[in-house]
């Protein structure tokens, strides 16, 4: 179990896709849910929202950006190697409804999380417009898949190297101005989700976000992933990971994500050192 069946590099190697054998999870998983993985005995438990599942093959697909030691360790594993542990599917699945027109806004690796949700929303009969963005053209992921999953796709790059020159919120504003939108789903870096929500709030359009808070067990036991939603403390692992974006305290989330920055740097430096030996 938990063997890596496929490994693909994206965004110039900064993002990696793994298709993993995990039949029990694949049989149950729904869009929006996540798994927790651990590479080896000394490894951390890392939560990742599934980018795809294939119940027939018994596989789940994860796509992650290499940011710290644990993701670097994941990325260094080859096809045929195994993760020591995978648990899931965790969290509540996305509530898929037909609301008419939906705009799916994905930024960075958030596009990977967005993909299965986009597919499901389209299957449910919505008219789906997607807006995906990245800092620069080379870092854009899953353009073809998002195109296939949507009726209409817009691409934005911060530096203008591809598609619209500017932020995803620029395109989102165009959509909100020109049509009746029933739902916006925004998934990406915290600042992006925050600005998407600020904008949709002005248009009073319901907005879902998927939160990537720090977790340990993923079953509501440790309380580490707590986020303030509408003045209440909620646990992203069991109450989420998706919440009404207009209620989320994004500043607190961004702050809490900084909790282990120093440790992460120390772990990464040590790992690089060991890899060079």
């Amino acid at each position, binding site marked *: 179990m938990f063997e890596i069946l496929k490994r693909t590099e994206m965004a110039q190697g900064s993002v990696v896709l793994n298709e993993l054998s995990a039949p*029990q*999870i694949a049989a*149950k998983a729904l869009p929006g849910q996540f798994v927790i993985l*651990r590479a080896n005995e*000394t*490894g*951390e*438990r890392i939560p990742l929202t599934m980018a795809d599942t294939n119940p027939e093959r018994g596989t789940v697909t994860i796509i992650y950006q290499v940011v710290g*030691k*644990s993701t670097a*360790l994941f990325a260094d594993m080859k096809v045929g190697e195994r993760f*020591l*542990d*995978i*648990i*899931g*599917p*965790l969290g509540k699945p996305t509530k898929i409804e037909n609301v008419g027109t939906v705009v799916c806004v994905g930024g960075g690796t958030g596009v990977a999380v967005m993909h299965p949700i986009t597919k499901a929303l389209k299957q449910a009969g919505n008219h789906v417009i997607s807006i995906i963005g990245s800092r620069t053209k080379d870092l854009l992921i899953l353009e073809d898949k998002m195109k296939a999953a949507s009726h209409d796709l817009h691409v934005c790059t911060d530096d203008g190297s591809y598609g619209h020159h500017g932020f995803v919120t620029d395109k989102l504003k165009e959509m909100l101005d020109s049509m009746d939108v029933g739902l916006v789903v925004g998934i990406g870096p915290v600042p992006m989700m925050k600005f998407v929500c600020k904008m949709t709030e002005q248009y009073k359009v319901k907005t879902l976000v998927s939160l990537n808070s720090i977790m*340990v*067990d993923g*079953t*509501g*036991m*440790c*309380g*580490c992933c*707590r*986020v*303030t939603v509408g003045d209440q*403390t909620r646990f992203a692992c*069991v109450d989420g990971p998706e919440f009404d974006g207009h209620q989320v305290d994004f500043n*607190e989330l961004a*702050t*809490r994500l*900084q*909790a*282990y920055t120093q*440790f*992460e740097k*120390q*772990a990464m430096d*040590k790992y690089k050192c060991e890899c060079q030996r």
Partner: protein
Amino acid sequence: MAQGKDTKEKLPRQAMPEQDPNIRKRNFDEVPTGYTPELAKAEASRCLQCKKPSCVEGCPVSIDIPGFIKYIQEGDFTKAIRKIWEKNSLPAVCGRVCPQEDQCEGSCILAKKGQPVAIGNLERFAADYERNYGSGELPPKKASTGKKVAVVGSGPAGLTVAGDLILKGHEVTVFEAFHKGGGVLVYGIPQFRLPKEIVASELHFLERLGVDIQCNTVVGKTVDVDELFEQGFDAVFIGVGAGLPRFLNVPGENLINIYSANEYLTRANLMKAYLFPEYDTPLAKGKEVVVLGGGNVAMDSARTAMRMGADRVRIVYRRSRDELPARQAEVHHAEEEGIEFYLLTNPTRFIGDDQGWVKGMECIQMELGEPDESGRRRPEPVSGSEFELPCDMVVIAVGSGANPVLTGNTHDLELNKRGYIVADPKTGKTMKKGVWAGGDIVTGAATVILAAGAGRLASDSIHDYLSIGW
């Protein structure tokens, strides 16, 4: 004869050797180092072998205490452990973490005039001796019944059920959400109080008996209870613990470096964060740490923080010393290690710096009023007594509620208004056919031995069901 009796009375209770507090407060090695065979025999010789042993009545799993102690007196340690195994699958654990002073030892006849027999220490000795020097021979197992039992949760309740039913000839599979079995024994109780190697060895013992332990399986998510029946299980025991941390709901609670005890202890124990960066999971090293709460979990958190290198660790508790719910031995150990107690004190808000890190706590003095429903005197704030306590890390250890992951995804399971499973206290039977429950998910947060006791009652009832019917 009379002379022999006199000697028995005069021999004092044999203390178990411990690591020096000034050394142990900076390491994670076990605090008490264990009896030698000589010390064990000397302590066992204090037992009067009562005809009507009240110690057994005080034991939630009814171990034949005089029986196993007699074997230790005689130096037959193998027979001693076999006697314990008849009633308890987890002696190395229970010998370490049971509140013996309130149970077996509290009922010991010697306690009336002096010091009770150190039953817990002797249980621990028998288990450790077997693990280190025993033959490895397994207890006898009944012929296979062909019945299959699913046990959800691998903590003390689940492991007791698994150990009992495998010996009675049933096939047992234990499902655990974490990547390692043991439940609270591995994520909650620190290494210095219960070494993880010992839990691993108890689990291995069950595996050698034939118990299948499936980790990484969240029942309620990966598979649900009804699906377990569809897969061919004849009975299901739910022993998932409480597992929902309580917070105080005071302002600033989500500042960085404010942990729930569950998170703090899970990172430290299960994920071995105290060995970072050898292990990858990080854990803050507070200089001035405050632990909120007065139970065993608070003591464990405070002593862990000290071992992580804190300069100062304070326990802030809203009642007085007499109401501390922790075992006296744990309070004593904490004090020896330099943990300070701020009693009759309650936090009113947490104060953060401009980067969102906790830097202090506003507290208020409390005084005790009339007893509340828990029987403890209700603490009330003294107005105008607010003061500030500087700190750079806080661990909240004020208890836990019922985790809804399994109960929220299981049909026909009756829950009480606080979300705990309703089960018959004598049998563990729930309202759902073929399903039993026991331990913290039924009673709310309690002790290892009470969970094991609930497991024992449930396993007897499950065995009856599998032999006779519902």
